[in-house]
């Protein structure tokens, strides 16, 4: 079975410092991987998506993630945190054994990013 693990439930950084949110997945096949962000009292916004075209994926707002098959990781990074980055971040894997997009999505438990000034 496919699964996704977000290694930190809470990450705190100072404004202007790098951000690293860690995600490991388990999949017997080449998965599709996503990062979504959810700001307080908002819906989920797609940050970026990996679909095997390139291992380094650039997303919105300066975020990027690198797919490392050997480490089964898909960590999210940003060189310099901004106060507006404070939010909940979900790593999501699409289970290739399931046909339907909705049931295929497996969400991590989320990482809360706090940014201090």
């Amino acid at each position, binding site marked *: 079975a496919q699964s996704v693990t977000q290694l930190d439930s809470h990450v705190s950084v100072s404004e202007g410092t790098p951000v690293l949110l860690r995600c490991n997945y388990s999949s017997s096949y080449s998965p599709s991987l996503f990062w979504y962000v959810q700001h307080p009292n908002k819906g989920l916004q797609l940050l970026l998506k990996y679909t095997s075209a390139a291992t380094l994926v650039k997303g919105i707002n300066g975020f990027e993630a690198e797919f490392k098959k050997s480490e089964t990781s898909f960590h999210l990074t940003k060189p310099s945190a901004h106060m507006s980055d404070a939010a909940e971040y979900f790593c999501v894997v699409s289970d290739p054994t399931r046909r*339907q*997009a*909705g049931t295929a999505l497996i969400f991590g438990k989320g990482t809360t990013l706090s940014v201090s000034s």
Partner: protein
Amino acid sequence: DTEVTQTPKHLVMGMTNKKSLKCEQHMGHRAMYWYKQKAKKPPELMFVYSYEKLSINESVPSRFSPECPNSSLLNLHLHALQPEDSALYLCASSHDGERGNTIYFGEGSWLTVV
């Protein structure tokens, strides 16, 4: 900005009320979804409509009744809800229902059952 629009943003209803949540998308997507999200938890899939037909019901209680009037609209009818149904309800859509499609979410409707 999200292109999935949900109304109302907030809803308070009593346990005997009947209300509806509405969702609209104009991206030409043919799959639409309802998710339920409790605080500090990831979203949980409730229903999937594919080409305006209900394709998946994740064992949701009958007090939640989805409806897809056309390819752009999705409703969730609520009746005789319980306080534990209080949550953020997210509508989403994708190009079609196939695995690997990106799912785009709306801003959500906050539901409080009193």
